[in-house]
């Protein structure tokens, strides 16, 4: 079975396990695999054939946005976020897909967490490539628009605003509170304690840039209080993607895909208290506590899918609205 990406990253035992446990499904030419606007609880990988990803925006005619061949995944947004499918997927010829559903991932989580991590890494890299493509498309739109630019004073303020490290006591954070964080619902109390030993608590004033353009390190944050804005910044013009509130994790794309040259900028839009894991902490996790790292990676992967969803929305908005002018 030509699993393309899987062949590169999984060992033969893992491949054999996925072949035996994962379901495959065939589709005739023109058959709708995913319908835009309908819920889907599955993610697919093309094994054979070609799948067209199409989208209807605001009731307009259908547009083909991508053609996917063997090794490519689709359906990840509705599967991970539990929302209706933002696009349709249609078989362009005779298509065979590997079908990954909740049951399959639960089985991987319970018995083969390392394999699940590898699968999510492969999907995550494809999502990053798509984010990069959308990022470049948006910077093109921004550069050709007469959007307002950040003032000199605004730039100066941002460059002077830096976060300060604080202790758990100074932040009024109890262990009990941390253990109950919804973001870490899938973690045991001991795992949350381990994680918080590795990271630091930051107090960041409004307008602090936490992940800069060109960030090459793997870092991740969890908002504990306050809010953070994700944006694409180009030529001093800002296009907002989303606002991230408490109990939400966000990370640099390099946490999933090292060396892909694009960055989403994360800046506090209110005063904020954050938990930060540096690259050193992440590396330590990867080396010494792989099971904990896999669980954290699930959250990082979820944040990547949230970004994918918001970057699609931003593109639609930039084509409709007279924005920030």
């Amino acid at each position, binding site marked *: 079975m030509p699993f393309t990406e899987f062949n590169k990253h999984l060992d033969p035992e893992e491949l054999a396990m996925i072949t035996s446990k994962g379901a495959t499904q065939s589709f005739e030419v023109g058959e709708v695999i995913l319908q835009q606007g309908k819920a889907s609880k599955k993610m697919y990988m093309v094994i054979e054939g070609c799948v067209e990803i199409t989208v209807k925006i605001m009731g307009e005619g259908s547009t083909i946005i991508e053609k996917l061949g063997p090794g490519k995944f689709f359906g990840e947004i509705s599967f991970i976020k539990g929302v*209706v499918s*933002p696009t349709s997927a249609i078989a362009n010829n005779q298509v065979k897909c590997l079908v990954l559903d909740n049951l399959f991932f639960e089985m991987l989580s319970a018995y083969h967490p390392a394999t699940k991590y590898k699968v999510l890494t492969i999907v995550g890299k494809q999502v990053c490539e798509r984010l990069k493509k959308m990022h470049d498309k948006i910077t093109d739109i921004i550069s050709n628009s007469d959007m307002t630019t950040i003032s000199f004073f605004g730039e100066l303020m941002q460059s002077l605003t830096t976060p300060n490290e604080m202790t758990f006591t100074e932040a009024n954070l*109890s262990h009990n509170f941390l253990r109950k964080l919804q973001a870490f619902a899938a973690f045991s109390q001991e795992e949350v304690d381990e994680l918080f030993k590795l990271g630091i608590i930051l107090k960041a004033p409004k307008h602090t840039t936490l992940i800069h353009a060109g960030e090459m390190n793997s870092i991740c944050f969890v908002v504990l209080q306050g809010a953070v804005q994700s944006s694409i910044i180009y030529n001093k013009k800002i296009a*907002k993607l989303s606002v991230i*509130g408490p109990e939400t994790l966000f990370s640099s794309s390099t946490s999933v895909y090292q060396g892909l040259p694009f960055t989403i900028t994360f800046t506090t839009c209110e005063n*904020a208290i954050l938990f930060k894991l540096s690259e050193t902490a992440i590396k330590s996790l990867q080396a010494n506590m792989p099971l904990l790292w896999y669980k954290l990676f699930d959250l990082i992967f979820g944040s990547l899918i949230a970004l994918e969803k918001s970057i699609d929305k931003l593109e639609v908005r930039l084509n409709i609205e007279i924005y920030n002018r």
Partner: protein
Amino acid sequence: MCRILSYLGKPIVVEELLYKPDNSSIKQSYHPLYMSHLLNLAGLGIAAWDHASHDPSLPYLYKTQHLPFYDENLRNLAAKISPHCLLAHLRGVTYNDKQIVSMQNVHPFMFAGAKIALAHNGALFDFQKMKYDLLEYIRPDYKHFIHGTTDSEWIYAVFLSQLPNSSDNPATEDIVNAITETLKILQRVRQKHNITINSPVNLFITNGDFIAATRFVLDYGWQSFEAPQLAHFSYHSLWYTYGESYGFYDNEYKMKGGKAKNSIIIASEPLTDDTTTWVELPEYTLIVARLEKGEVKIISQDINI
């Protein structure tokens, strides 16, 4: 906590928006898709502008503090009138006997003599502490029109006071400035009283010619670490859909596409389960829609106060 629907465009029979879609406004009162833990049972109000009506600059105003899904008069009215602009508000309040459910507290607010209406989805934390400090920002002629007990009516009075004098049909720039100034005033008064708890201020403002709406939260993400989750801490969304006309097309309620973009709905939540023809606006966004030569023009900007 509260649901708002606004419409601008081709004349439409009100029941097409209030009753018929699978997540219609009336359904959102007893079965909201979002924030479903809190029903919106404390009243409904509509303001509807119709070019063909007597004095078209003034809307039909209908308000009731009763449950809207039992209201036969509303149903009959909604099946008859077809305005080009509509602002409908469902009031949702927490379930306790301190809440005052009355006609005076039903949105949209529209003072006598004013031609601009406002509806609010959100709540200002500790409003009682800050209320009288807002008086200095309200023009004297508006002060005696405040009859209810909601923070929203006070926000309306502050907003009207920030518009240029006798401006019934303000320019988009004036609307944007007045909204921004209103939010800054609320922030300033909160700071004076050390109020730093998350308070959503989703405003819908219209005079029949434009709709302005905000998705905004003062001190977003701030409440005590150990405090129980409060209603005003939850999700206050803002969505829109636009196109040629809204109705029942291809077996579903949706905005019909096409070259002409004549109509827009801006609402707290989509009117259908299928949200693919809707766009959700992120927090800290202000949007203004206007009809220009029959086309809807949408201006948006990030709110950065």
